[in-house]
Structure formats: C-alpha cells, structure tokens
C-alpha cells in the first residue's frame, strides 16, 4: 500500500491514468455535440437557409469540467484509496494468541473491545496467521484456528462478573507454557490484579506481547448502606484523575411492575480521589421497591450493586398487654424489643385492630394471652398470607388457659399450666443456660454468651410435633423458642418474657442476632462472616459481567462465611442469595475493595481501543463518478435542447430519485370535512385489509342506496375513515369490521373515539364470524374485538331485548341477519328500572342511542352492491337467501333510523296505545 497524505492506495499505478486527463480534455473539446433529429413540417420553409457560421457550438467548459471530474473520480476510485490506512502492527507470521482479561471491568467497553478484536482478526487473516483465544477469567487451553474461524467465536465471549483469581492465572500460565512460540495481543480491562506480571512474563517468553487497553477510567460501586434515614452510595474509580461527576440510578419496579429508574443522585469524585459518596433519601415505600443501583453510562457488574434486606426495613407492629403503667420504661414489656429493633426496623405502635390494616411484616405480642374472636380471625388471615407473629410469654400467658388442652391456632405448642421457675430464691436449681443451637435451627452458628440465663419460662407440653418446632432450647432440653408454620406465615413463641424479668436474654447481644436471623430486623451494617457462620445460601438470581440479572437455575448453594468474605468467582457468582426468609445480595465490589490501574512495563507497547477505522473510499468515489456522469447526461440533454420543455419534469424526477418518495399524505382537512358534511354520509373504519375495506365500502353503498330508495334519508357515497387522521364528528354512525390483523389505534385515536361515542356517535362492530364465539375469546376476531374495544368508553351491554327500539324504527324486525344469521346483537343495557307500563306494548327503553351495536353477521357483505347496483356476495340459497338479504337491508335501515331519530320511533309506536287509552 502506498500512502499519500493520509490516504493509502491499494493500486497506486492506476493514478498514472490521471495524466491522460488533459488529452481527454482536448479530444472532448474538439468533438461537437451530436445533432438531434427533429420531425418538423416547417422544414419546407427552411430549405435553402444556410448557417451564418460553419462552426457549431463548442461543448461549454463547465460540462467538460464535469466530465473530467467524473473520469478523475473513476480513476482515483479504481486506485483503491483508503482513509486512515493502518500499518500492520504486529508483524509476523506465526500463531497469534489473543488474551482477554474478560472481567467485569471491561464490560462497559465490551463492544469497542470486540471491534478492536475484529480488526485484529482481519489483520491476522490478511497475514494468514492462526489465532487462539485465552480468557483469563475462564482459562482454557486455546486451539489455534484460522482467523476467520476465530471470528465466529467472537460473539461467544462475555465478560465474567469477577476478576481473574490467582488460581486462574496459575492455570493460564500453565497453559501458556505448554504451547509453542506465538505472539500475543492482550486485551486488558485496565484493572490491576494479582499475578498479572507473572502472566506477562510467561507470555513474553513465547513471543512479542502487545497490549490493548482502554484509557477510560473503570468505575465501580460499593454496596449501598442505610444510615440515619438515608441510603449511602459509594462509587470508586481506578485512576485518581481530575474531578468527575457521575450519576447513580436507583432501579426498581414501579407500581405497574415495570423496571424503571426510581431515583437518581449525582456523585462527584474530587480531583485526585478515587472514591465518591452520595446520600439518597427516599420514602420507605419507594426504598422498598429498589432492586439495584447502577452508574449511568456504565454497563458492568462492578458498577451495579444489588440491594438486599439491608435496605428493606421491615415494619414491626408491637402490641403489649399492659399499657397503663406510666413511667416504668424499663419494665415496659416492649422496651427491650424496641431497643433491639429500632435501628433496623420501622416500628408501629397501636392496638391490634389498628396495626393489622397497615399489613406489617411482623407483629410482636408481648405477654398477651387471649385475643377476641374479632381480632383472632383477621390475625390468622394475616399470618396465612405471610405474616410473622412473634409472641413472648409472661405472667399472663402462664396464668391463662391458653393452648392448654388443645393447641391454640395462634400458639406453636401446647403449654403446661403455670410455667416453671428455676434458680430463684425458692427453688433448688440454678438458672438454666442455653443449649447450643441445632443445625436445623435458624439460629445455628450463633455464639451463645455465657451470661444468658433463664430463670422462669412457660413450658411446652410434650407432643409428637414438639421436637420439630423447637428452634432454641435450654441446656436441660426444655424448649425456649418454638415455631410453627401457618399457611405462608409463621408463629414464633419465646417461652420467656420480652423483659429482663424471666431471663437475661433480652439484655444480651444474642437477642438482637436472633431477631436478625428471624428476619424480624435486618442488619444495617453489611454482612459479617461470623454472623453468617454455619448457614447455607441458595442463589436466586445471579449477575453476568454486564450487570444483567438472570435466574440462578441449578447453581449450588454457598456457605455463609464464603458469601461474606470470599472473592467472587465461578463458584460464588454475584447475585441475590436466599436463606429462609432472608435475602443477601452479593456484589462484585465490596466496601473495602480498592481499584488499582493496570500498569505495564515500558517495553510492552500499549495501544488504546479507540482505533480509527480504515475507511475504503473507492465506493464513494465510484458513486461520485456515476453521479457526475448522470449529471452529465442531464446537462448534455439540456444543452442540446432535448430537455427543452421537460427540464422541470426531469428535475422533479431527479429530485424524487434523490429524496425518495415523500409522503403525499397531506390531505386537505377542509376537503375531507366538506365531503363528509355536504350530505349525510355513512362511514366505515378503514382496517387496512383491502378486501375488507372494499366490502365495507360496497356494503355501505348498498345500504345508502336502499336508504335513498325507501326512506327520506338520502346519504351520499360512503367514506372510509382513518381513525388516526380523520375527524369523526361528521358521521352519525361508523361501521367497524373486525379483522384479526388490524392495528390497534393510537391513544389519540382512542381519545377521539371516546369523544365520538360520548357525543352521540354510534359504532357498529362487526366481527364477521357469525357469532361463533358468542363474544368470548374463542375466535380471533372476537379476541381482536375485545382488545380493540377495551380502551373504549362502552356502557354495560345486553343482548338486544325483543322490545328494543331498534326492532321497530322503520321496519318491524326480530332478526338481524347479514351474510350470517346469528341471532345475538348486543346493545347498551336498558335501564334497570325500565318496566312495562300497563297497557303499553313496550317498555320505555334506551332514552338515548346505544353507543355501540355489536354483532357478527357480516352485514357489509349482505348489503354490498357493485357500482352498477348488483349484489356482490351471494347470500344463503335461492329465495330464502334473497329474503335474508332483504332482512339485512331492513336491519340497516332500522339501524340508521335509530341513529338518526333516537327513541323518537319508540314514542311513536306508543301512539295507538295512547290513543286507545284516551278513547276509553
């Protein structure tokens, strides 16, 4: 390739042809334009006239210039010019290994990286090199294939939501050492990680290494924390460069269930700092909807942080039996619970009847023995719907008969009467301590402080189910905490008081941890390994490198300690993990992660990803040449007079060719309005199906003719109405045939339709399916009708009653056949108080016109006539068929009369009856 001033030529010798241009100029200049042959009767008058000078018009210079330009463009185009030609960067012929970091840090720039990769592959293909791939986050032995085969694998590379772990690096180095010599192109994500230098060394042993790395900063976000009523969000970056502002979006489901950005907050990195924080204060309802935070403009797992229970503050209703002991704060049965829960939960105080409608997550009953029937039933409903009832024992429960003989529905176990007291002044034993938690217990793994003792408790009756329900027991095996599932909810009983009277448990930190384990409160301080010790967590949804959540599928569970501490990897994918009621989000970046920029030794060439594309110009130049030649055609024609009077037309054609067909849809509104209103006009809705529209038109034409012949209604030709564009108010009635494929009108069109219906218009819906669906969803047309009519303001409907005014506005009818003769026709339901007056033949129904009439008899087909007045569609058979067509016309006449006269006919039909009564 030869490069002249930034433009390379693949065939530079072609440019020599440019030397021929001046010769061409001279030749073209010497040759006169070809003569035109014209037929002209007046030639008889021309005979003998000679030209004043014998030289014809020369070709004008600008036309010559145009032609020269066209030829020059052709020559240069054929010489194969390329803008931004790229020198072969990695020279060589051996195999080429492409190493990808493949971590989340490169996810945002993954498309650019893929493009750069493709450029590399193109170059490798040009040089005939084989290519292998090695992804450091998922190291596998590369297979060296041809570059074209490698290209097809590009789409399969996805960033992993973790950084290459040391084990991965070791494996990668192992793989590299087994391969023969090769050159390396390393696509780095720009973040430092352990073992990269070792990897580089291993690669350099095999051949030259070239690094591609984006210069842009990598952004990441630490998990959100909740402090002092605000969510604290921390954003990190790798390079402490200039001041930079980023926007953090809180994503979640809106009340309609769609994911959307619920809130945005800006965060600003100070110049030279790698961390920025922002505080976001949101109402509790909105906060509970947030599922994730991400950084605007970033699309990586690291820039996304998932939200778990830490932000979800549970609502806890606290209800105590004794409310009247003023001033004794420390003796209040709820004091310790309030202390334990207040930092991490929203507390609701009040009577049970007031708390329940607020639908709290948890209700705590402290020493309340019995509930009234009126309270018990809704409480049970609430528990079965997923509520958690936590009860604490106390003197009242011990003294009551609750759950004595049979198990109370609101108690997890039966209780012995009286309870027991140990280690008191009057008893022999020492206060009991807690037994270690069993594996099945939700408290498993919690450390039991030495000083937690129990001196009094209520005692559970031994039952077959008791051992299943115990989740904490004393050292002598008596249950301390029992639990029972009820519906989707559960009932938990602490066999001690919520105060320090019976045990020291409420005074200990264990109490708070137990509350957390029961998901009554949520930890505000992030996950700690010790706290999760011994639990197993199931992944619910996991993130990929781009930060997109997907179903976890059959991924194995994760040990709680690992979840808190271990770095993310294939066995611990970032995502949402669940254990029982609790949810924990495991994010890529944790609070103490620091991002370090990748640095490379000076001998390794580092290039950016933003390479300028090679741009071949040949196509453009050849197109330009053709365009110029076309212009030359037009210019030559106009010069020689052949475009004489058609130059405008030719220009128009040229313009049309260039600009493409423009929308000639600018229908003059006035002309439409004039057409529609000059005479009474029936209209149909244009469905877009040509045959249906044609049939509607022909049908309404037939009906219009019939009306013209038989009644004083003399409609003009029917008009097709485009719901999106046309004004509807001009038409007394719209015929709307339903086709399954017709588009749903826009919201604006629906607004127009509703206005039309409210202001007295009527729509005749015709499903054209003979009512086989009975207006269910059994036929496609029926479904489409339901879909189309859903946004319409349609009153309740009923099948047309026998005394509806539609049966007698012009003809007396009881059947309304069209092409089909289905019976049902649906109209606005009559008023519920419509009653038949004594002596009247009809009820006084439907004071107004029914805004819709719905049927499926395909009336248009029965009405349809061709322009010469002959019926277009055969109806039924023989005479019966003609009778059916006649009835269809009569229905049409009745319908139009109904639309135009309303209930007038209804009144008129009563006249004989009125006269009759007057006569009496």
């Amino acid at each position, binding site marked *: 390739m030869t490069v002249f001033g930034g433009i390379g030529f693949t065939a530079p010798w072609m440019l020599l042809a440019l030397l021929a241009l001046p010769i061409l100029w001279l030749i073209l200049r010497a040759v006169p334009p070809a003569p*035109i042959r*014209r*037929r*002209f*009767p*007046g*030639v008889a008058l*021309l005979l003998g006239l000679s030209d004043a*000078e014998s030289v014809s018009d020369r070709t004008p210079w600008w036309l010559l210039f145009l032609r020269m330009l066209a030829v020059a463009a052709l020559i240069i185009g054929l010489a194969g010019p390329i803008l931004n030609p790229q020198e072969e960067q990695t020279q060589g012929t051996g195999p080429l290994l492409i190493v990808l970091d493949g971590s989340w840090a490169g996810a945002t720039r993954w498309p650019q990286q893929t493009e750069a990769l493709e450029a590399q592959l193109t170059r490798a293909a040009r040089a005939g090199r084989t290519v292998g791939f090695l992804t450091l986050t998922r190291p596998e032995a590369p297979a060296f294939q041809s570059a074209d085969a490698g290209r097809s694998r590009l789409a399969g590379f996805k960033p992993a939501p973790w950084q290459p772990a040391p084990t991965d690096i070791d494996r990668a180095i192992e793989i590299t050492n087994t391969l023969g010599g090769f050159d390396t192109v390393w696509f780095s994500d720009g973040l430092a990680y352990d073992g990269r230098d070792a990897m580089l060394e291993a690669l350099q042993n095999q051949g030259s290494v070239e690094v591609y790395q984006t210069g842009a900063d990598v952004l990441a976000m630490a998990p959100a924390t909740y402090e002092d009523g605000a969510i604290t969000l921390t954003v990190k970056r790798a390079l402490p460069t200039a001041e930079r502002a980023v926007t953090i979006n809180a994503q979640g489901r809106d009340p309609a269930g769609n994911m959307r950005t619920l809130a945005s907050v800006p965060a600003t990195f100070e110049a030279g700092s790698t961390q920025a924080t922002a505080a976001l204060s949101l109402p509790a309802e909105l906060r509970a909807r947030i599922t994730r935070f991400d950084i605007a403009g970033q699309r990586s797992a690291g820039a996304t942080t998932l939200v778990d229970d830490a932000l979800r503050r549970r609502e806890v209703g606290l209800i105590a039996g004794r409310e009247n002991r003023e001033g004794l704060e420390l003796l209040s049965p709820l004091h310790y619970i309030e202390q334990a829960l207040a930092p991490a939960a929203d507390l609701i105080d009040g009577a049970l009847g007031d708390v329940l409608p607020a639908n709290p997550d948890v209700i705590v009953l402290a020493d309340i023995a019995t509930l009234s029937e009126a309270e018990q039933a809704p409480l049970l409903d609430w528990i079965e719907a997923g509520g958690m009832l936590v009860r604490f024992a106390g003197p009242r429960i011990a003294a009551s008969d609750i759950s004595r003989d049979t198990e109370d529905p609101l108690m997890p176990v039966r209780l012995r009467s009286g309870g027991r007291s140990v280690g008191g002044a009057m008893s022999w034993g020492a206060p009991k301590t807690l037994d270690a938690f069993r594996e099945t217990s939700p408290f498993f793994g919690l450390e039991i402080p030495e000083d937690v003792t129990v001196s009094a408790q209520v005692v559970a009756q031994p039952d077959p189910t008791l051992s299943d329900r115990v989740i904490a027991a004393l050292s002598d095996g008596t249950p301390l905490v029992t639990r029972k599932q009820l519906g989707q909810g559960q009932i938990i009983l602490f066999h001690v008081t919520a105060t320090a009277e019976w045990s020291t448990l409420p005074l200990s930190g264990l109490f708070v941890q137990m509350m957390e384990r029961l998901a009554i409160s949520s930890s505000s301080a992030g996950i700690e390994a010790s706290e999760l010790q011994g639990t197993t967590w199931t992944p619910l949804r996991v993130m990929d490198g781009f930060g997109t959540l997907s179903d976890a599928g059959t991924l194995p569970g994760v040990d709680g300690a690992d979840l808190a501490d271990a770095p993310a990897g294939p066995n611990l994918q970032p995502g949402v993990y669940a254990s029982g009621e609790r949810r924990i989000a495991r994010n890529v970046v944790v609070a103490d992660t620091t991002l370090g920029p990748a640095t490379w030794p000076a001998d390794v060439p580092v290039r950016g990803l933003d390479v300028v594309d090679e741009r071949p110009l040949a196509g453009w130049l050849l197109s330009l040449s053709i365009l110029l030649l076309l212009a030359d055609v037009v210019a030559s024609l106009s010069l020689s007079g052949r475009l004489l009077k058609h130059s405008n037309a030719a220009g128009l054609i040229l313009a049309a060719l260039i600009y493409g067909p423009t929308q000639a849809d600018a229908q003059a509104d006035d002309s439409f309005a004039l057409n529609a209103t000059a005479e009474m006009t029936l209209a149909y809705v244009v469905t877009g199906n040509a045959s249906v529209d044609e049939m509607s038109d022909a049908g309404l034409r037939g009906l219009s003719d019939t009306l013209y012949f038989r009644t004083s209604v003399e409609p003009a030709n029917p008009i097709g109405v485009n719901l999106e564009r046309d004004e509807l108010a001009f038409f007394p009635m719209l015929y709307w045939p339903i086709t399954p494929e017709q588009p749903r009108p826009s919201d604006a069109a629906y607004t127009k339709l509703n206005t039309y219906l409210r202001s007295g218009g009527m729509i005749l819906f015709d499903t054209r399916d003979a009512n086989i669906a009975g207006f269910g969803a059994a036929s496609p047309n029926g479904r489409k009708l339901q879909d189309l009519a859903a946004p319409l303001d349609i009153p309740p409907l009923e099948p047309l009653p026998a005394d509806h005014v539609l049966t007698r506005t012009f003809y007396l009818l009881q059947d309304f056949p069209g092409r089909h003769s289905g019976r049902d026709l649906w109209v606005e339901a009559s008023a519920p108080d419509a009653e038949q007056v004594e002596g009247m033949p009809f009820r006084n129904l439907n004071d107004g016109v029914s805004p819709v009439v719905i049927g499926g008899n395909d009336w248009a087909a029965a009405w349809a006539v061709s322009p010469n007045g002959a019926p277009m569609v055969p109806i039924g058979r023989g005479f019966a068929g003609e009778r059916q067509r006649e009835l269809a016309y009569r229905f049409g006449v009745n319908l139009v009369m109904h639309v135009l006269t309303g209930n007038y006919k209804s009144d008129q039909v009563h006249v004989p009856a009125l006269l009759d009564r007057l006569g009496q």
Partner: protein
Amino acid sequence: MNSPETLRIRSEEQAARLPALLARAEHLAGAVLLGAHGRRRAGVGDDFWQYRPAQVGDSRRSIDHRRSAMGDHEFVREREWQIAQSVMLWVDQGASMRFASTAALDQKADRARLLGLALAVLLRRGGERVGLTGSALPPRSGRPQILRLAEALCQDDAADYAPPEHRAMIPQARAVFISDFMGDLAGVATALTKAADRGVRGVLLHVLDPSEEAFPFTGRTIFESVGGTLRHETLKANDLKHRYLERLAERKAELQQLCALTGWQYGLHHTDSTAQSALLWLYGALDTRSGGAA
C-alpha cells in the same frame, strides 16, 4: 382517436354547441336545387312567405280565396323559396399534418378533420349538402353522408404536402380548405383561381402547430419532414429562427393575398387553442359574411 367512430362522436359534440347553420348562396340561380329542405318542412316550397295583392299576369289559380274573402282585394299567397347550398370540404391528409410538437397537443391533421367534420355536421343539420372536393364524395344530404365523410376524412395520405383537390368543383357552391399550407403554394393558387372561375367561394383555414410559429429550437439539428422526404441540417438552429419566421409570415401574407383576389376568406388556427373558436369562426365565415341572415 382516428377511427371514424370517435372522430364522428367528437364532431357531433362540437357541432352540438352551435345553432344550425344555413349557408347562404350569393348566386341563387346557378346552384339552387329545390326541395332539399323538404326533409324538415312539409312539402317543397310550401312554406308561407307573404300575401301580396294580385297583379296582372297572376293566374287565377294562384289567388288565395281564404285571404281574399276577408276583403275586397284579391291576394296571392307567395311561398318561400327554399334552397340548399352545396359545401365542399378539402381537408389536408398530407403527412405534414400528422404532427404535434408535444403529446398534450392534437395533431394538426386531427384538428383539421375535427373541424371539417364538425362543420359538415352543422351544415347537414341546416339541411345543406356536404361533400368533399373532387369526385370521391360529391355533396349529398342526409345523415349517411356524415358517416361517409368521417370515413373519407380518416384516410391518410403518404405524401408530405398534398395540393388542394380542385377538380369537379360544383359551380356556385361553397368550399372549405383546411390545411397547414406548408407545401407549394402554386397548387393552392391554382385551386383558388379555378374555384373563383366557377363562382365558388369559400374559406381557407390555416392550421398550425404552436412550435411552427415559435421555432423554439437550438443547437445542432437535423430537421426532417414528417414523411421523411425533406431534410435540412443546421449547426445552430437558433440562428435560423428569425429567417424562418420571416418566411412563414411571407407565406401567410401570400395566402391572404390569394384569398383577397379570389374572394375567399383566410383564417389562422393554432392547435393549442380550442377547436370551438375555429368552428365559430368558420360559422361566421360561411354564414354572416355571405350576406343576409338565415
């Protein structure tokens, strides 16, 4: 367009817009043919004209007794002398007539035939006898004559410029020549002088295409006649315009001169103006200028 049926229909349309035309003859005696109007009126020469007092020499039989019985004098009832005029058409069928500069315009031949036949329809409605010059279709009356005329007019002549047919002229008749008169004017002069010798008067209608009047050509051009017999090449067509127009004006002047000499009338018609105006003019030329009302 050119079939006899469509030509006739269009001619009827044109003719329907004008009142019936009664061609006047200057020389009654020679060309009078009685009874021609009887088709539309009862009896030959039966129409009442006037009563005049009986004079010496009137036969007794001619006295109108009904009128005379009303007074003391005797009256003779005079009847109108009713006449039919023969009109001969010559419509140029030459190839030069089959020319229209743009597709939107009628060919000259088309327009000429239309005008000719429209005139024939009008004349027939007025009871006149219409035919072609020459012996092919002598003037006759009646509807079938229109059909025959339409058919005869639709024949094309291969020659570029056809001279007017001047044989078998009926003395004292009227004649209408419609042509572009682009050919040799000697033929026209012969025809007109011969016609004048026989007492035939008439109308020349000069039909031209607008491009023949404007000569809007430029550049190197080879002009060919429609039949292809004549050809003229020029390197600069726009240079010729002035001289061409001069020649055209000369030709028109020559034609007018001829008409003035022979008592004919000269009319110019362009195919981009309406046929109606030309027909009106023909109406006027055949009707009012010939003296007296119909």
